[in-house]
């Protein structure tokens, strides 16, 4: 841990053979409760983890073996960082095409293509991707203060 900084960290390992949602959902929930995160932020973090882990499991592996997926959630000031490390095929979501939001639904070639990634990009403030030693390392950052007064939702 960094010197002199208040940083809260939760780490856990899942595998592609588990029901991952059942594993990480209570972790995120507990992390939110422990550190007083707004429920909406907890939902965003859960949704982003869900979309990314589902992507990894559905599209990431060329074999049928069991693979680890390591997740670290940390809170540093008002910034939550989720780190996901996996040994799946290289996948840089920053280069993934956006869904055809402007095309009418019935004309879209891939009706929901990339929607999960789109949700992640919109709900997170900063995304970094690296491929290191045969692993995808994804860092997702979210400022919690943005959540206190969501856009267009002013108190009456």
């Amino acid at each position, binding site marked *: 841990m960094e010197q002199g900084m208040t940083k809260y960290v939760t780490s856990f390992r899942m595998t592609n053979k588990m029901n991952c*949602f059942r594993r990480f959902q209570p972790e995120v929930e507990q992390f939110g409760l422990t550190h007083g995160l707004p429920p*909406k932020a907890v939902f965003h973090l859960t949704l982003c983890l*869900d979309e990314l882990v589902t992507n990894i499991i559905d599209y990431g592996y060329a074999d049928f073996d069991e693979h680890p997926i390591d997740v670290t959630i940390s809170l540093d000031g008002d910034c939550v960082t989720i780190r996901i490390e996996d040994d799946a095929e290289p996948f840089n979501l920053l280069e993934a095409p956006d869904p055809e939001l402007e095309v009418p*639904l019935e004309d879209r070639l891939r009706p929901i293509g990339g929607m999960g990634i789109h949700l992640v990009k919109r709900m997170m403030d900063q995304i970094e991707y690296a491929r290191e030693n045969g692993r995808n390392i994804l860092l997702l950052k979210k400022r919690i203060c943005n959540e206190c007064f*969501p856009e267009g939702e002013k108190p009456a």
Partner: protein
Amino acid sequence: MALIESKENEIIILTVNGNLDAEGTQAMEEKVLALLEAGEKCLLFDFSELDYINSSGLRILVLAYQRLKKSSGRVAICGVKDYIQEVFEVSGYDKIFPLFRDREGAVSGM
């Protein structure tokens, strides 16, 4: 996740209770496909007790929309919580699906 089905004025109302995670979404997909197969033309998803949805859950709504559009059917959603409403807005689906505040409004407005 619990899925409750009812019918009002030819509208099938699916009330989804709890989480539409991978498991819940699969159950809902099977139900929706069975209803479409049975020739139902009007689907209302009551999400007032829905706590969680992801892009796979949205995909089922799109599937129902696409199938029913061909047969002049309708799909609507009611009662979404504000943080789930945001998922509809971010995905652009708030412009595709009529979103009603409550079931009564949806049944009379569909």
